[in-house]
């Protein structure tokens, strides 16, 4: 089981990967730029994502919205920005592949002549509304910002969220957008996957034809930063919510680093689904919580591991904290039992198969090839990635948990209804997110 591919690097540094899948007459174009919000600086946050919006607003040779020709052709398209990378993709009928490549290459090579103050102002308004819709007006929407701010020091590039600070978005300028494009949006900082109903040789010819003339840009310095916390940070955040909620967060291994797969397995057996330890104990048996979830959020520089739970009205965040911490401590002491790890492995293996079902879009095969290629320089990592999970032993999982999930090195955030600071875990310090 793998995602077969062929890779060439163009003279300008653009990495091109082609994967054939002739099952459905569609082709995915998936382009990653190795830039995200971690390339921003304090007081200039939100820029990488705002810039992603501008990439859909037209380029020198097609100075109109990018959605029109591609949707008219029966395609779908989107993009996204996270801390580490920005991706753009189209899924088009196979005979429309050249249109997608024409447009992706035009905005890589010729964006700036078309990037105007009016577009910049309009998309800033759109992004401010995106922020209102997905963070400010959404219950618990600001919790992630409070956690990141506490987990990483102010100068660390994971300190801020990708959507950015409102004041920074207002202060952003068109000149900065031009500089940002020149620094990061060029062939030598990008990886292109063409996947689907296309012949490999034809796809490479097209990639060379459309992208080969674009000059390489300046080298991009890799961002590096480390972070750790040496105490338990207890915070409370008031929000427009009916019920309080507890967020426990620890630093954890980076994406694909040693321990990443083990922490993912740990997350699975701790809180994924009804069979998981915490669901079973907190929701099913003891009825202390209405929901519980966990996540190994692995990122390029470092990861964080998070457990989130909402108490039933009869119980408190402090009780949940005790129960969750006790369960984690048990796991760190005894490790999982073979049968529960076996179950997690079965789910992981099936999920790797399910990931092979789509060529395009977020999480499709083209996106996976780009993730492996961009972060590891090894697009063929699929099988080894799976092996990390299948070969992990109970003792490996126990050791990973013990190394990272100490109670004295975490952020414990209590999100409480307005005016109900009494519901927070005792000793929590009030924090504010704007």
């Amino acid at each position, binding site marked *: 089981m793998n995602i077969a591919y062929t890779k060439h690097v163009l003279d300008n540094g653009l990495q091109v990967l082609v994967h054939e899948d002739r099952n459905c007459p569609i082709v995915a174009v998936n382009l990653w730029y190795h830039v995200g919000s971690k390339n921003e600086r304090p007081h200039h946050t939100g820029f990488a994502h705002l810039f992603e919006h501008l990439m859909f607003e037209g380029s020198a040779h097609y100075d109109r919205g990018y959605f029109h*020709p591609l949707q008219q052709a029966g395609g779908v398209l989107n993009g996204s920005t996270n801390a580490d990378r920005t991706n753009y993709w189209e899924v088009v009928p196979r005979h429309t592949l050249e249109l997608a490549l024409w447009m992706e290459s035009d905005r890589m090579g010729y964006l700036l002549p078309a990037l105007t103050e009016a577009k910049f102002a309009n998309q800033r308004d759109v992004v401010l509304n995106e922020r209102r819709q997905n963070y400010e007006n959404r219950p618990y929407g600001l919790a992630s910002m409070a956690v990141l701010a506490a987990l990483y020091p102010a100068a660390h590039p994971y300190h801020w969220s990708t959507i950015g600070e409102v004041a920074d978005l207002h202060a952003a300028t068109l000149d900065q957008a031009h500089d940002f494009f020149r620094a990061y949006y060029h062939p030598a900082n990008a990886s292109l996957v063409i996947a689907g109903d296309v012949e490999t040789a034809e796809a490479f010819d097209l990639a060379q034809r459309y992208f080969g003339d674009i000059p390489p840009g300046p080298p991009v310095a890799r961002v590096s930063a480390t972070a750790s916390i040496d105490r338990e940070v207890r915070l409370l955040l008031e929000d427009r919510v009916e019920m309080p909620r507890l967020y426990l967060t620890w630093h954890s291994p980076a994406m694909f680093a040693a321990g990443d797969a083990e922490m993912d397995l740990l997350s699975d057996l701790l809180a994924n*689904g009804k069979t998981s330890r915490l669901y079973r104990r907190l929701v099913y048996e003891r009825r202390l919580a209405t929901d519980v979830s966990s996540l190994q959020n692995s990122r390029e520089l470092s990861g964080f591991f998070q457990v989130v739970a909402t108490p039933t009205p009869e119980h408190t965040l402090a009780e949940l904290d005790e129960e969750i911490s006790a369960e984690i401590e048990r796991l760190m002491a005894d490790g999982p039992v073979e049968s529960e790890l076996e179950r997690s492995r079965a789910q992981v293996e099936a999920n790797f198969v399910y990931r092979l079902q789509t060529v395009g879009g977020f999480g499709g095969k083209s996106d996976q090839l780009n993730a492996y290629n961009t972060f590891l320089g090894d697009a063929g990592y699929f099988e080894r990635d799976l092996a990390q999970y299948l070969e992990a032993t109970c003792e490996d999982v126990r050791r990973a948990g013990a190394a990272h999930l100490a109670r004295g090195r975490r952020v414990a955030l209590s999100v409480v209804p307005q005016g109900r600071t009494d519901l927070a875990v005792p000793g929590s310090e009030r924090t504010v997110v704007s």
Partner: protein
Amino acid sequence: MSVDRTRLPVSGPAAAPRLPEVRRTRLSNGLAVWTAGHHSVPVVTVVLVVPAGAAQDPADRPGLASLTGDMLDEGSGARSAIDMHDALARIGAQFDTEVGADATLVAITTLSRHLAAGLDLLADVVLRPSLAAGDFERVRRLRLNRLQQLRDLAPFVAERAFARWIYGTHPYGHVPVGDETALAALTLDEVRGFHARMFVPEGATVIAVGDAPHASLVAAVEAAFGGWRAPAGVHGPSDLPEPPADPPAGRLALVHRPAAAQSELRIGQVAAARDTPDYHALLVLNTILGGQFISRINMNLRQTHGYTYGARTAFDFRRRRGPFQFESSVQSSVTADALREALGELEAIRGPRPATADEIETARTALTRGYARNFETAQQVARALSQLALYGLPDDYFQQFVPRVEAVGEAEVLRVARDYLHPDRMGILIVGDRDVVAPGLAPLQAGPLTLLPGGGAAAS
């Protein structure tokens, strides 16, 4: 060869979508079984379509169908809920129950080598749920807590208030999840009764799509579901009444949400049933109006004015006439402006600025050339087939889709816009801060503002 950047490349002729070859059979108990091969990945998806959803809830028991759906996977026979999910996890299954207005869909996706085990689990869940008292109390409490949390989620508050506003006491007038009052009154006997009445083989369809021959799929379904019998004297779901023809008494309503960062908006009316002969024309109309990014309403509200992250419209085609609605979440200070622009677009497409030949061509090609994408995965195929089964659509529906859309012309789009969209009678709902929003609404000339309950907790 260098690239000609003076014009966009011209696309070649569209490739024909690869449509699933569907075989339809019926078991001796009346259960319809549809199968289709899908061989790109060793995965199989099975969907059971039960043609009874939230519209079958008794008037004083909104949420019954949904709660019943939630109880299905809480154990069967000697297996507890935990055991059931343990068994599902050990075959890597994705399991999902979805209760909509017209149907309950219970779906399982697993590796094709686990087909028989997956079907056995699906049959346990659907045919033999324990429906035990202890589980019922736990599940009901969790739902009460969930409903309490949803009070603060603006899109949900809007969805619930809007259904009631447009449909009144009609069975489409409540959201599937129901409300806290009804949930507190619901009994386990009612859940058992609903399950016994609605989950019967006659009228239901099992759709199996995946990496296996038709004969294997049918044999596996028959092994798991062949013994399914309806209790004596049970007749399944009842017919639904026609939805109200009249618009809501007041047109303009608001759910007060103090200090809300945005206003959640809905504009709409009772519109079209799934079996309308105008279905394809309405799809083309909606694609132009608000069905994709480049639609008039999104271009206006988002791209021209920057009022919102996105704005859209949709027809929700159902057994009876489902709603048409506009929806968006906009910056509070521009609420009235956004409503004016949206209403303007709804009116314009009916005559002042009818869909142009170019717009219609763009919408038609978006729908027809994009059609192939809908059949990439086994889940997509099974889901598409579930709509055919649920609404009794013709066997050659997929084959007819492209020619039917291609046949839609300007006159037809204008006619359906005039027949189905009546912006002067549509309900308008705002979930937002009354004090910020209300003063600006007078110029809309939509009549007095009705205040509806349900805004949730206070903000800072």
